[in-house]
C-alpha cells in the first residue's frame, strides 16, 4: 500500500470538545438540508395541528386571542417530537450511532451536539409557523417578549427531549414512546411558556410576567444540567 499523509492529531483541550459538538451540529444540518425530510414533515404537521385547532375551536376574535398561547405551544410540542425522533433516528441508519460512540469524544459532547441540532430544527419550524399563525389568527406574534419565551421554552423542551429520545429509539415501541415519556415531565416548561406568552400577548405588566420567565429559566438550567449528566448512562452499552 502506498504511504499516505500521516494522521496529525490536534493537542487535547477544551477546543476539541466544542469542535466535536460543532461538527455534530454541522453534520445534522448538512444532512437535513440535503434530504429535507425532517423540516418538511415538521412544518406540515404543525400546520395541520393549527388547522385542526381552528376548526375544532370555532371562536370569535377575542377568545381566539385568549387561546392563542395554548394552541401555539401544543403545536410546538407535537411538531417538536418529530424533530427529536428524527434527529436520533438519523443515526440508527447504517449504524452511525456506533460511529459516534466509537470516536474518542465525550458522551456529553454528543448530547450537546444532538440537543443543539434539534434546537435549531425546532427554531426553524417555529420561524415558519409564527408568521402563518399570525396571519391566520390576526395577531402580531413578532414581539420580542414572545420570541424570547419561544426561545427559552424550546431550550427546555429540547434538552429533556434529547435525553428521552435517546432512550425511546432504543426501545421496540420507539415511535409512540417519546411523547409518552416526554409530555408528563416537560409540563413545567409548557406551563411557564404558555403563561409567559399569554402575558406578553395581552401586554400584561412585567411584574406579572417575570415569575413565569424566572420559572422557565430555572427549568431550562435544571433540565439541561440533568440531561447532560444522565446522557452517558443512556448511550453506554
Amino acid at each position, binding site marked *: 500500500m502506498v504511504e499516505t499523509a500521516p494522521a496529525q492529531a490536534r493537542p487535547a483541550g477544551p477546543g476539541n470538545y466544542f469542535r466535536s459538538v460543532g461538527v455534530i451540529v454541522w453534520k445534522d444540518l448538512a444532512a437535513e438540508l440535503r434530504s429535507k425530510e425532517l423540516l418538511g414533515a415538521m412544518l406540515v404537521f404543525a400546520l395541520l395541528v393549527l388547522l385542526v385547532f381552528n376548526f375544532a375551536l370555532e371562536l370569535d376574535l377575542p377568545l381566539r386571542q385568549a387561546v392563542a398561547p395554548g394552541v401555539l405551544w401544543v403545536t410546538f410540542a407535537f411538531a417538536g417530537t418529530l424533530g427529536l425522533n428524527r434527529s436520533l433516528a438519523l443515526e440508527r441508519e447504517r449504524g452511525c450511532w456506533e460511529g459516534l460512540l466509537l470516536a474518542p469524544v465525550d458522551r456529553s459532547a454528543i448530547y450537546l451536539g444532538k440537543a443543539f441540532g434539534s434546537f435549531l430544527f425546532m427554531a426553524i419550524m417555529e420561524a415558519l409557523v409564527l408568521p402563518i399563525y399570525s396571519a391566520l389568527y390576526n395577531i402580531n406574534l413578532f414581539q420580542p417578549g414572545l420570541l424570547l419565551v419561544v426561545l427559552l421554552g424550546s431550550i427546555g423542551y429540547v434538552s429533556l427531549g434529547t435525553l428521552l429520545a435517546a432512550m425511546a429509539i*432504543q426501545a*421496540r415501541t420507539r415511535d409512540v414512546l417519546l411523547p409518552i415519556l416526554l409530555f408528563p415531565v416537560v409540563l413545567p416548561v409548557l406551563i411557564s411558556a404558555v403563561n409567559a406568552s399569554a402575558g406578553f400577548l395581552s401586554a400584561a405588566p412585567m411584574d406579572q410576567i417575570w415569575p413565569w420567565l424566572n420559572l422557565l429559566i430555572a427549568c431550562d438550567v435544571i433540565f439541561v444540567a440533568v440531561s447532560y449528566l444522565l446522557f452517558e448512562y443512556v448511550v453506554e452499552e
Partner: protein
Amino acid sequence: MIRERASATRMALTLVAALLLLAALGLVFGYAPREAVMGEVQRVFYFHVSSAWVGMLSFVVAAVTGGLYLSRRERYWDLVQISSVEIGMVFGLIAILSGSIWARPVWNTWWTWDPRLVTTSVMELVYAAYLLLRQGIEEPERRARFGAVYAIVGVITVPITFLSIRFLRTIHPVVIGSGDASALGGFAMTPKMLETFLFSLLTFTVLYATLLVYRVRLALRGDMLEARRNALFSG
C-alpha cells in the same frame, strides 16, 4: 446473590401491618369525630392523603434506587425500583379515586383542579410512562439503566410541576371545579383528627414497606426462575 430476609422478620412485619391497619380502621370510624360541614364522607381524607403520601414516597424511593443502580450496577436496586413503582402506582390511583369519592358529595364534582391532585395525576402518568418504557426494552441491563434514568428525571420534574400549577392557582381564580384553591384541605383539624391522621400515615407507610418486601422477594424469585430456565435450555 439472593438476599433473603429471614422469614421470621417478614412474618412479624406482616403481622404488624395487619394490626396497624385494623387499628387505623377503628380510629377512622370510631375515634375520629364527625366533621361538622362535610359529614361522614370526610373520613375518606385519612386514607386519601395517606395513599397519596405512599404514592410520593414510592416515587422518591424509585429515584433513589435508580441512583444506587447507576452507581453500583447491582440488580437488586433495579428490582426494588420496579417494585416501588408498581406499589406507588396503585396507591396513587387509590388517592385519585378516593379524592373523587370525597369531592362528589361535598362539591358536586368528580374532579377538582387542586394542584396536589393534578400533580398526583401527573405522577401517575410518569409511572405509566416508566412501565411502558421498560416494556419496550428487551435487554434486562438496559431496561434497568433506562428505568433508573427516567425515575430520576421524574422525581426532579414532578415537584417543579407542582410549584408551577400552584403558582397558577394563586393568580387565577378557579374556573372549573370547587371554589377554593386548596379545596381538598379545606377544613379545620381537631386534635383527635390529627392523631387519627398521623396514625393513618404511619399505617400506610408500614403497609408500603410490607408490600415492598414481598414484591421484591417475588422479583428475586422470578430472576432465579429465569436463570434456571435459561441454564436448562442452553446447557
